[in-house]
């Protein structure tokens, strides 16, 4: 993971953990307590620096909000964390492993899955096909196993298991009545539900939601939030990008404010609410 001469924080932490058998409970387990650690992330497009040395951590089992005015670098940060973009500098550590610059699929397979700002359903596939796609390590994804007669029975068996899970998740999100529908025919809100359900089926530790409530009606928003809270209670970690300040303030335990590509401040919703800098950033103080 890192050179022996230059041990990283995580190595030290793990070492301490091993040696002290958890005696120093507070200083230990940084990776376990903070599965996602972002350090000095930087990305520029031409002359514009979209993300300028952002550093933050996301605590396990929390619903953490990432907010900021337009152009603060929220989406770019998301893309850098999930591998859609490669950072110019900085590191992303997930579950103690340096995942900077890995491909999106490699990051997803390590347990961190994202959804997209504009729900990107696979329109010409049914809701069920969309859902069946998501689970990791499907045996039938190897071509030879899918076509060879005897081995295909093995694939069939796994498909049957997956199908049950898929229907459970469909029930959980209350979209079982549109299961056979083409995803392209769904309404905007249904697409958001589908996307979250699909991400969940990859069996992630952590979900990154990019504006999951944009363009969603209040009733559905409430429903989506209920799902998120329920999942968080089950132990999932969420990082949420959102525009709606009220929504973030009322639902997140921890809020990170990005401004001009840097972390302006972070803390509990109450801290943020009373922070002068944040108010200024949002109301357009310095640009």
């Amino acid at each position, binding site marked *: 993971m890192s050179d022996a001469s230059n041990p990283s924080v995580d190595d030290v932490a793990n070492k301490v953990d091993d040696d002290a058998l958890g005696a120093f409970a507070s200083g230990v387990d940084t990776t376990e307590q903070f599965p996602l650690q972002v350090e000095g992330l930087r990305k520029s497009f031409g002359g514009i620096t979209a993300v300028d040395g952002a550093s933050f951590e996301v605590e396990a089992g929390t619903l953490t909000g990432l907010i900021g005015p337009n152009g603060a670098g929220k989406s770019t940060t998301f893309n850098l964390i999930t591998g859609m973009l490669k950072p110019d500098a900085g590191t992303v550590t997930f579950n103690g492993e340096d995942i900077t610059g890995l491909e999106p*699929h490699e990051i997803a397979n390590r347990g961190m899955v994202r959804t997209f700002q504009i729900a990107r359903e696979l329109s010409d*596939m049914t809701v069920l096909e969309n859902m069946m796609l998501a689970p990791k390590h499907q045996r*039938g994804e190897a071509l030879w196993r899918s*076509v060879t007669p005897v081995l295909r029975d093995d*694939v069939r068996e796994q498909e049957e298991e997956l199908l049950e899970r898929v229907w459970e998740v469909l029930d959980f999100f209350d979209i079982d009545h549109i*299961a056979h529908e083409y995803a392209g025919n769904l309404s905007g809100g249904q697409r958001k539900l589908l996307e979250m359900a699909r991400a969940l089926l990859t069996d992630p530790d952590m979900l990154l939601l990019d504006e999951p409530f944009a363009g969603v009606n209040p009733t559905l928003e409430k429903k989506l939030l209920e799902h998120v809270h329920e999942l968080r209670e089950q132990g999932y970690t969420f990082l949420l990008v959102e525009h709606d300040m009220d929504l973030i303030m009322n639902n997140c335990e921890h809020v990170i404010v990005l401004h001009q590509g840097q972390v302006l401040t972070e803390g509990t919703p109450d801290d943020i609410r009373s922070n002068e800098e944040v108010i200024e950033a949002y109301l357009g103080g310095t640009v």
Partner: protein
Amino acid sequence: MSVKEDITARVPGGDTGLIVLVLASAYLLYLLAGIGLGYDLRGQLNSIATLTFYIGVFAMLSLALNLHWGYTGLFNIGIVGFMAVGVYVMALVSKPLYVAGGAAQVGGLGLPLWVGILAGMLAAAILGFVVALPALRLRADYLAIVTIAMSEIVRFSFLSGDLQAFSLMGTRVGFGGGSGLILDFTPPLEALFQAFGLWGVYNGLVDAFRAIVPTNPKPVVDGLIYGLLLLGFVVAFYWLLKRTGESPFGRVLKAIREDEDVANALGKNTDGFKIKSFMLGCALMGLAGILWLMPQGAVTPNFFRPRVTFFVWIALIIGGAGSNTGSVLGGAVFAAVLYQGPRYFQNLVSTVFPNLDSPSGFGQAISPLISSFDPVPFLLYTIDSIRQLQLVVMGLVLIWLMHNRPEGLLGHRKETASVIPLSRPKSMVAADGGADESVRTDGGVDEGDSTVDRESNGGVDDE
């Protein structure tokens, strides 16, 4: 929606029924045309064999292309290049060793035919890999540019004198250059039947055919049996690609076609899937090329012009990209109507009206139309040159299809990408049934619901 859709839905036996129906009407039309042309039995049998041959090759090629375009969204317009590599490598491996003074200017490695066929498919797949590796990482259009350029590079390479003859493993081999390559290996049918020890049986069949075709029945029987063999290969392609599509592998391919970023974000190594799909399709195109040209006595590089690629595309578009059944149907319709049809039509017209005096040039055809509004010479001229107009007809058909039925004959028929049907498992229905009062039992009810859903959302979603 349209009348045609109703018809395709009403044919008994579903898609299979539709294919059988289309094939049956094609054969019937050709038999009738044969009667009109005054063919004897031999002529009729030959015409059936030729039709079967082209239906076979175009169905195979359009199935392979469907894997690329219909399933994975890979825009391959270099099909003919993979066919060429398949045939040429097969010839290189399977042609007999060079003998000085023989008819063939170059020899091959003298290995059995099946080794050559496998080598040809492998070579096409490897070429696919080489082409795909840089191009797949770029935007989709670049793959199109790279593949068509590749197919021309392949053609010019086989034309070039440098590859005409060279030495490989101490024997004189080569690709024959512009003058072509004589395919002097054992004829494929003979090799096939000998491999199974059935050559004697086959010769018996040929002899039995003397009863209906008294003189030299062998070419007739060869043609018919080879046609049947090709249809067998079509079934095999269909079987393989259906299983490929209806699997988790096929599901990822479909997802790549829809939105590659999403598939990637869900943990699928999309580059790997694309390369596998591309290589498999290329190998099948190589095999189709081999099967097309193997029974001919010789092969020349200029057969492999890009137009063949576009023929296959037209076949796929007619049938409907994304559907394996549609690909077979498209191949059959293309072969029967657009590829062989104009020739038969012209022969038919000149047989039925033997005294038609068609003008010999475009000027003579067009001048009466302008000077005295007499369209007859122009009409006659058009019929006379219908073979040359084949490409124009194809273009018109394409334009018509794009306007009226862009999804093709069976493009609306979506084949579910999973090994099992995706309705709610029975065990779960039972478990939920008692507790939940708003149970939706399974597929049947769901579909009812979802149609309502579709209708109520339809207007908004279309935006």
